[in-house]
């Protein structure tokens, strides 16, 4: 347990996100920094905080545009944050925004700052596709070329296949395997069936659609006007309320195309969107007259084998977080866990209640137990709402804090898996 003065507790005040849209939709032509700025501007507007009071901005981003490597800075400036406020970008795949939040929480706890913005932004419609390596080398040489002869010499070194561009793959660099393949490994280990997988996916879509219907996201989502027509996007376009087992059963496996379980219907999809949350010290919130929704009490990160444990992260971090804080599953009233794949979620639940996994891998005395579904991702999750890599953590934290506030429970856990075999788990506590 961390013991620091109570007034230095980092607290979450509020959060805002843009609608999350399937890639190649309405946000296609908005750049990553523009989306990020919309989330920050929306947060400033919603909370009414004077931007001069912000001490630092940290945003997560995974597929950075080469033009805006520090996208947090550009997003913050455009959102109206004064240029005297530093901003930087962090990257840890799908838990980048979690890192943004916890690193700022640490600095608040150390008394270094009182007010900060964490978040993330991602536009996966416009990946930075490069020309091939040979063409890049040729272009560098061409800058020094003198006269036609030099140019001809450079051109001669190129072959026809060099015109094929270099497209960034959503694949693990160390293993060359995609996330989907990693998921197949995990679901085999936990013996997850296609039926269980589809069932969980249907649940996610139906819950997300219901949450929108009930207006749960209205206060968290800021409309985004998209030039040139300037039509306002107000809702996520991912949730499919009409999702059924029958429909999902018809889809062919996407990764192991013959015997696989994961399909396009039960996996999260490429998404564009951004999120931002306002963090303060408890003391700062009191002085400025803001009401905290949750305390960022503790957190855990873990790494695993990038080949066999690519998506096992939450199963590694959740037990560690709970054990460290002397908590049991039953103590947690709100769970918000990133849904990369439906099968990964089912596998995670199975692993946490497996004696074998918990004893052998986690060196625990026994299984952790079963996370109750009725407390987990009840407003939908990444499978249905969408998953803009760098921004998802911001959505999870905001939703968890608001559910905690609304349901009146004591603790919430926010967890996620990330490329590289990483996992994150954050413990929130209701301050009231």
């Amino acid at each position, binding site marked *: 347990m961390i013991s620091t003065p109570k007034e230095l507790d980092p607290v979450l005040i509020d959060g805002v996100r843009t609608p999350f849209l399937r890639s190649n939709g309405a946000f296609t032509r908005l750049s990553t920094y523009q989306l990020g700025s919309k989330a920050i501007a929306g947060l400033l507007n919603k909370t009414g905080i004077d931007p001069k009071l912000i001490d630092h901005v940290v945003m997560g981003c995974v597929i950075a545009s080469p033009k805006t490597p520090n996208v947090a800075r550009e997003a913050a400036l455009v959102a109206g944050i004064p240029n005297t406020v530093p901003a930087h970008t962090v990257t840890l795949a799908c838990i980048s925004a979690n890192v943004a939040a916890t690193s700022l929480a640490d600095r608040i706890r150390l008394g270094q700052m009182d007010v900060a913005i964490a978040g993330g932004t991602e536009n996966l419609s416009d990946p930075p596709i490069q020309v091939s390596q040979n063409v890049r080398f040729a272009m560098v040489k061409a800058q020094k070329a003198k006269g036609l002869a030099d140019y001809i010499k450079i051109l001669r070194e190129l072959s026809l296949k060099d015109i094929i561009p270099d497209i960034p793959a959503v694949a693990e660099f160390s293993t060359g395997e995609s996330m989907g393949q990693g998921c197949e490994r995990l679901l085999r280990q936990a013996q997850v069936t296609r039926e269980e997988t589809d069932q969980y996916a249907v649940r996610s879509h139906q819950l997300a659609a219901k949450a929108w219907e009930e207006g749960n996201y209205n206060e968290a989502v800021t409309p985004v006007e998209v030039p040139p027509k*300037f039509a306002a996007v107000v809702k996520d376009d991912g949730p499919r309320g009409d999702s059924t087992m029958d429909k999902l059963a018809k889809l062919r496996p996407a990764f192991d195309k013959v015997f696989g379980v994961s399909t396009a219907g039960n996996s999260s999809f490429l998404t564009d969107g951004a999120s931002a949350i306002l963090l303060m010290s408890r003391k700062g919130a009191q002085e400025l007259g803001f009401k905290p929704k949750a305390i960022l009490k503790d957190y855990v990160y873990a790494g695993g084998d990038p080949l066999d444990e690519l998506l096992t992260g939450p199963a590694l971090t959740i037990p560690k977080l709970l054990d460290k804080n002397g908590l049991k599953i039953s103590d947690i009233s709100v769970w918000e866990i990133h849904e990369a794949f439906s099968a990964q979620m089912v596998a995670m639940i199975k692993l946490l209640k497996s004696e074998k996994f918990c004893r052998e891998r986690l060196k625990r005395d026994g299984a952790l137990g079963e996370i109750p579904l009725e407390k987990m991702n009840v407003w939908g999750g990444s499978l249905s709402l969408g998953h803009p890599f760098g921004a998802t953590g911001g959505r999870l934290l905001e939703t968890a804090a608001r559910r905690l506030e609304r349901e009146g429970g004591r603790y919430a856990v926010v967890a996620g898996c990330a490329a590289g075999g990483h996992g994150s788990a954050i413990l929130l506590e209701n301050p009231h």
Partner: protein
Amino acid sequence: MNNNKILHLEIIKDVAVVTFDDPASKVNTISPQLSSEFQEIFDEIAKNNTVKASVLISGKPDNFIAGADINTLKNAKSAEEVERLSREAQRLLDRLATTPKPVVAAIHGTCLGGGLEIALACHYRIATDHPKTVLALPEVMLGLLPGAGGTQRLPRLVGIQAALDMMLTGKNIYPRKAKKMGLIDHVAIPQGLKEIAIEAARRLSNKALRSKRRKPKLVEKVLEKTAVGRKILFSQARKMVMQKSLGLYPAPLAILDVVQQGIPRSLEQGLAYESKRFGELAQTPESKSLIHLFFGQTSLKKNRFGDPKTKVRKIGVLGGGLMGGGITSVSAQKGLQVLIKDIKLEAAVKGKKQLFDDLQKRVKQRVLSSFERDKILNRVNAQADYRGFENCQLVIEAVLEDIAIKHKVIKEMEPHLSENAIFASNTSALPIKEIAKASQRPQNIVGMHYFSPVQKMPLLEIVVTDQSSQEAKAVAVDVGLRQGKTVIVVKDGPGFYTSRILAPYMDEAAVLVQEGVGFYELDEQLKKFGYPVGPVTLLDEVGIDVGAHVGEFLGRVLGKRVTSGDPKVFEEIIAKGYLGRKTGKGFFMYDKKVRGRKPINPGMQEIIQKHCKPGAQAPSAEEIQLRMGLRMVNEAVLCLQEGVLENPVDGDIGAVFGLGFPPFHGGPFRYLDTVDADWVALTLERFSERYGSERFRPAPLLLDMAKSGKKFHPV
């Protein structure tokens, strides 16, 4: 004592740096004192053998020289006196231009009029790449021409066409453009301006640097370097000027003439002619009126209620229509945060889109980056609820012109506002006191009457009631000024000032149309009088229903003075759906495909003819102009008499910048002073008799002025 000097000399090795820094003012201007100091310093530079070159630079943070001191001109008694002043300035600059020691102008900030003429006389010009750095010759806006060599040096430097464009429009030239057109030699960063200028001066003196002259393109050579080409060029330019000004403004024609005469002759001959015409122009009533407006506008830049206690950071705008969107746009562009709210989100977003469109135009012109555009856009939040309104220090409503709706909005919104928030109603006629009746806090309520389109129209008419608090007035004026508006303040009353004086004017137009005056004829005559748009087109633009609505309301309150036209005609027109441009049909037909003059709407013609009551004889052109113009002027005098206007300056500025009253007349009061109140009163009485109508009855104050011979603007 050195402290009172405008010019400061500093010798850095072999270069003399002359710094302009007028201790008496925030901006440097050209005055007689400057001239004498100039002489002294350049005598000294000429004598000093160690000095090989010099630099002219300003000590002010954001201006080089903002132009000549207009008061000197204003006080001059005759054309000859002004001509002499111009000759003196020319001789000074000639000395600068012909000195064997090269002079570098180091320009940072505004460089206007005489300031640019000084720079033009230098041998090398460096300007900083800074948003505040602009170069222009705006004399034409004051009915003058550049009288210190500008008309001769500028065309010789940048070519005739580019020079005419600058001098006829007075437009701002920014450094990059200035470099491209050859107006300056180099663009520098502000931090290094002085050092770079000194280095340039030194290199010029030892011939290591030369001012590179721009190479004219072939077309330009043919048009400008041959007598035939120039003939074509000037005749085209003259045609365009006549088309735009209808020959009502002498300055643009004089500029054309001076350039045309001067270019084929020697510089000295050209300069002599420039001074002569400058002296003449300065004595024209047009120039005097424009200068009057300039001083009026300048005086209105100060907040007459002092600084407000709260500095507004965020405003709320209700209504995403044309007005709401326009108010949002000008506010966000000047750094204010805006919440724009409408019943439907789509409507609010549509209002915000106006800002996007305004900014996008500038992005396309490459004067704004898309980054800056997005930053400004993020200042605005479009929404369908009152979230965040508790943080607004001012809310401006721009909903429908209907007292019931305004009341509903106030009642609905007030609980969401902080107790000290100011509420402004953007209405063109509804009395603010009536609107305030729905409020719990009438002391916080004022009127802010914007003109459409808000982005283009410079005027803001602020309406205060006897209940409005000092803070409410101060906040409204402060925000208006920050929005870049020329702000007049008037007392509450039906139609306030601008709509009220427009009412009898439009009423007379209705009478004239019913007497059988054609739509084109009417528009044409008023344009010849100096209005930018004729009344028929104006009504089509505003919307006939809107005009009728306001007219009917004012008629109820002001009575016979504004209701001589037949109201039944309007009812019929509106029933037919002829509402003006917005419905495609009004007096004219609006078809995007039709270029040039819009055709008359035959349906409208028919209605008018049915109700036509031709007079004994068709009114003459002059009569049309006077019947309309004088009714407006007369109503303005009534407004002053009743205290709606605090002073005649507000009245002049309001009529010119809000309604397009002919600027060369300087506003209704300036007009009365020029043509004589006595003559106006007589003319009105004559009309009154002839038409047997009280609508022409002169205001009592006008009769007083006519009798006493006093002026509204005593000299």
